């Protein structure tokens, strides 16, 4: 029930209960008074407790609720980092998890009692916040190792996940990942987590600022976000963001092509045609109305530097 309805109802009930309490003697004598007592002192409070409790439990899963404690401020920032290989940021910025419940989406166990255990953990957090010793920034740890199921509730059996070479390699292996025998967050894989200690060195993503608006010195920023996430840099594994930047974090298809991209053989080494929004085939899909044609490509002026020709799709 929305707060706009619930709040006035609660206030009205408070007024009714106060009136019933003050005139209890008179109300308890008559038949109508007894019915009013039943409604005001049992029916309405019971209903409001259920509705308010349900709303409170629901809203406590909201990101704003988690981030209302100052200890969580760096974790909010980790969602806003401008790095396409930074797991929390990628998931948050690309809506891979609902933004409103970003914390809850990843930190709730995928079991029957997952929600309950998440709430109990939340109560522990509240206890520590008010009565315990709050750990320093970067020293906040999970109560138990992060279970793969929390990742796999979305990624399990997804094509994009299974096709990543590292997920099938000797270090991980799909069976081991699915059985939780090796952790997704193991060293050398996605071990960075929120990486709150590194946040000061990193830039923040500004919605509305697009890659083409950035200075030319920065990486191209083109390409598929998800490809950037899953295409490991040449070093392999998820590297620290600073390193990732150095190796071309957020690498465009062009740099990937130049650097060799996926160094594996098989499908990865074979030149594959990736669909992009500039791809004429994809354009055809969206061509509902042929009349408003795309603006004609403008010739770069002599003063402007000529943009670098991206590598042709499908060329090695």
């Amino acid at each position, binding site marked *: 029930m929305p*707060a706009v309805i*619930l*709040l006035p109802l*609660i*206030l009205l*009930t*408070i007024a009714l*209960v*106060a009136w*019933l*309490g*003050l005139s*209890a*003697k008179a*109300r*308890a*004598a008559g038949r109508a008074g007894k019915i009013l*007592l*039943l409604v005001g*002192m*049992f029916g309405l*409070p*019971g209903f*409001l*407790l259920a509705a*308010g*409790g349900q*709303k*409170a439990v629901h*809203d*406590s899963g909201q990101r704003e*609720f988690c981030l*209302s*404690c100052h200890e969580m401020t760096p974790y909010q920032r980790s969602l806003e980092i401008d790095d396409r290989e930074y797991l929390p940021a990628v998931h948050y910025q690309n809506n891979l998890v609902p933004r409103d419940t970003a914390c809850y989406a990843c930190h709730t166990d995928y079991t029957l009692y997952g929600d309950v255990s998440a709430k109990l953990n939340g*109560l522990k*957090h*509240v206890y520590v*916040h*008010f009565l315990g010793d709050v750990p320093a920034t970067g020293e906040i740890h999970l109560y138990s190792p992060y279970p793969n199921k929390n990742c796999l509730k979305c990624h399990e059996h997804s094509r994009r996940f299974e096709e990543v070479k590292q997920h099938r390699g000797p270090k991980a292996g799909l069976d081991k990942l699915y059985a939780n025998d090796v952790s997704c967050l193991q060293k050398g894989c996605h071990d960075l987590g929120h990486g709150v200690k590194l946040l000061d060195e990193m830039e923040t993503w500004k919605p509305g600022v697009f890659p083409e608006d950035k200075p030319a010195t920065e990486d191209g920023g083109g390409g598929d976000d998800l490809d950037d996430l899953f295409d490991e840099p040449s070093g392999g594994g998820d590297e620290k963001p600073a390193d990732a930047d150095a190796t071309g974090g957020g690498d465009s298809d062009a740099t990937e092509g130049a650097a060799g991209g996926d160094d594996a053989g098989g499908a990865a080494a074979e030149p594959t045609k990736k669909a992009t929004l500039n791809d004429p085939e994809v354009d055809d899909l969206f061509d509902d109305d042929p009349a408003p044609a795309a603006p004609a490509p403008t010739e770069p002026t002599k003063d402007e530097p000529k943009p670098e020709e991206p590598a042709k799709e499908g060329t090695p």
Partner: protein
Amino acid sequence: MSDATETVIAAEAPPAKKTDVKLLRWTAFLLIIGLALEAIAVAALSPTTFVPFAFIGAPCILLGMLLYLVHVVRELKRTKAL
């Protein structure tokens, strides 16, 4: 039970005792505390408002409702309906 019998029982029922009125006032007091905490939590939910509602407000409301049920049972016993 005929209407005549019902009328006789109602007429013979003694007036509400002072303790019953007190019980109702306690019920009202607990409900008001609980509902006020709930109103604060609904208006601005944060851990600071959620915890008092969950650990003080909700038990207050439940206790108030329980006291009302005690009042009802007493009332029924008093009127010999139970």
